[in-house]
């Protein structure tokens, strides 16, 4: 397995007391497969995704990348781990508003430094953004923004793609394009974990999990 969660639990502190977002969840994602997690809003899908991506330390259990416990790494090593191995795609795209398309795609290079690929030309061509390279996010359509986010997630050639509702804000056509790209990423040997409500996307997943009240169950 490339990445796995072993009986992890995530608790939030709120004004009304602790909230158990993820309870005793175990999940494995192998290279080249697409795993879909779905469930109602507030069921803990995003928390599970963040925990797997090294962004949210679980209260219980552990997250393993190959044979390494991600949360035993120091803060800076975990940042380097994210930079080298994880590509994030968010529902709201989260592009930096004052950077152009080209610069947004190259943001992971800020952390990677000289080891980062110098030319994002291939990615720009792959996501059909050649004519938008110098544009700001505010000048792009919704579909284009998500394509930029996908291109950015691949900039450092990560092993794992973690996508949070990647088609949630898109129309049918753009949603279809994104699904095709995610399939292609898995086809390149990357592990793809998507949190989604989109039945079309789930249909392309190797395995599907249902998450409700923080508990995960595999669906046929």
């Amino acid at each position, binding site marked *: 397995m490339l990445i796995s969660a072993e009986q992890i639990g995530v608790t939030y502190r709120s004004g009304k007391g602790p909230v158990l977002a993820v309870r005793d969840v175990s999940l494995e994602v192998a290279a080249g497969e697409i795993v879909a997690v779905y469930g109602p809003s507030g069921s803990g899908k*995003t*928390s599970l995704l*963040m925990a797997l*991506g090294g*962004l*949210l330390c679980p209260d219980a259990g552990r997250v393993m990348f190959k044979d390494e416990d991600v949360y035993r790494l120091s*803060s*800076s090593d975990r*940042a*380097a*781990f*994210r*930079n*080298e191995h*994880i590509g*994030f795609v*968010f529902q*709201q795209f*989260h592009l*930096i*508003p*004052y*950077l152009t398309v080209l*610069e947004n795609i*190259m*943001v*992971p*290079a*800020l*952390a*990677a430094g000289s080891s980062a690929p110098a030319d994002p030309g291939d990615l720009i061509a792959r996501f059909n953004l050649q004519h938008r390279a110098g544009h700001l996010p505010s000048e792009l359509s919704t579909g284009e923004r998500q394509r930029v986010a996908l291109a*950015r997630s691949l900039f*450092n050639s990560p092993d794992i793609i973690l996508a949070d509702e990647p088609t949630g804000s898109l129309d049918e056509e753009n949603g279809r394009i994104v699904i095709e790209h995610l399939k292609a990423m898995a086809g390149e040997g990357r592990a793809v974990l998507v949190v989604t409500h989109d039945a079309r996307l789930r249909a392309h997943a190797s395995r599907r999990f249902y998450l409700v009240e923080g508990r995960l169950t595999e669906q046929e």
Partner: protein
Amino acid sequence: MRLVSLLAKEMAHRKLNLALSVTSVALGVACGVGAILMLRVFDLETERTLSAMDQRSRAAWDNFQDEMRKDMLKLGFNLMILHKEHNLSSPAEQTRYLPESYINRLAESSVVTINHILPFLQQKIWWPEKKRWVTLVGTTGEVYVKNANQQKPMQPRVAPQHAVLGFAIHQSLEIKAGDSVTVMDRTFTVAECLPAKGFEEDEQIWIPLNEAQELLDKKGLITGMLAVNCQCAPKDMIKIHREIAALLPDTKVVEHNSRLVARAQVRSKSAVEADQALEREKETRKQLKERRLAFAAVFVPLVVVVSVVWLAFLIWSNVRQRKTEIGILSAMGLPARSILFLFIGKAVIVGLAGALVGFGAGVALVAVQGGVVATVVRSSDISLAVGYLLVAVLMSMVASWVPALVAARMDPAVSLREGD
């Protein structure tokens, strides 16, 4: 892409935040620089005012001295050098004379307390032609002591075979200038008829010294010398006595005390008054400067504190604005130290820009207040500028340190969730 480039683009994107941050630093620096330069302008003004006042005072003093000198001429000589046994109050004992050579000896000396002297030979005589008692005075006219300031003579020289008559004489005998008078068988042309003085001078006939010596059979002798002490300080009398005694044996110096003291006191009081006025002005300016300094000592730190607080607020607001951005950068693997760099780097740039703008504004403030920039800003102020640059950067870093640390330690999951 590098972090510096990200930093520059962010600043260019959030221009208002940048402008307000730079203004905040500039305000603090401008107040500091302005306070220093304005105090310097005040010092220059003080210097100019006191100098002008001093010049006016000196001019007035010189003018006053001259006026005083002219007025004092009317009082006549204030010192008399006589034979030590000459008794002024007893005509019978007025028979002791000094050698005429004393005139040159005194004139050639380096006595500094006496300016000019009037040698005279004086004797009360029976004027047979007019059948009355008069005092015959022979004089050479005024002789200047070597190195002395040669001012206009107080007593005009009497030309050979001429005479100057006292008021009582020419008035009672109805003699006018140009008339001839005969004294002891010698005829003189009246050169001048003196106005009333109310003293014994009214009963005197002034003729050239050599002619008086012949008439009185006192060849080579003089009664004494009238002198003017021009320095006029009462304490100088001791010095005059000492100098004259050493130079002219068997002499005494008789001073007309009231005249001398009056002259000295009037001059001294005037000089003291002028000095006191200058001192009062100095004291007023000093107090004004102290008040300004006290105000600046409170105002400048207050502005600096307000600037730092305002800057911290702006940076804090910048951190909150960039919460999602910080989350994205963190998710993409940017370490905490790089996020810290983004905010501290911005603080350094804001500090530098604020210092430059503030320094310029401080100098402009001086210009607006009427100070001549060229005279107020000195070449040594480069160290002041560098100092302010460092202080501004430090101030900016202090203000941004806590918000930057919060940003660097922000939980990316929370940032992304709350930023949505």
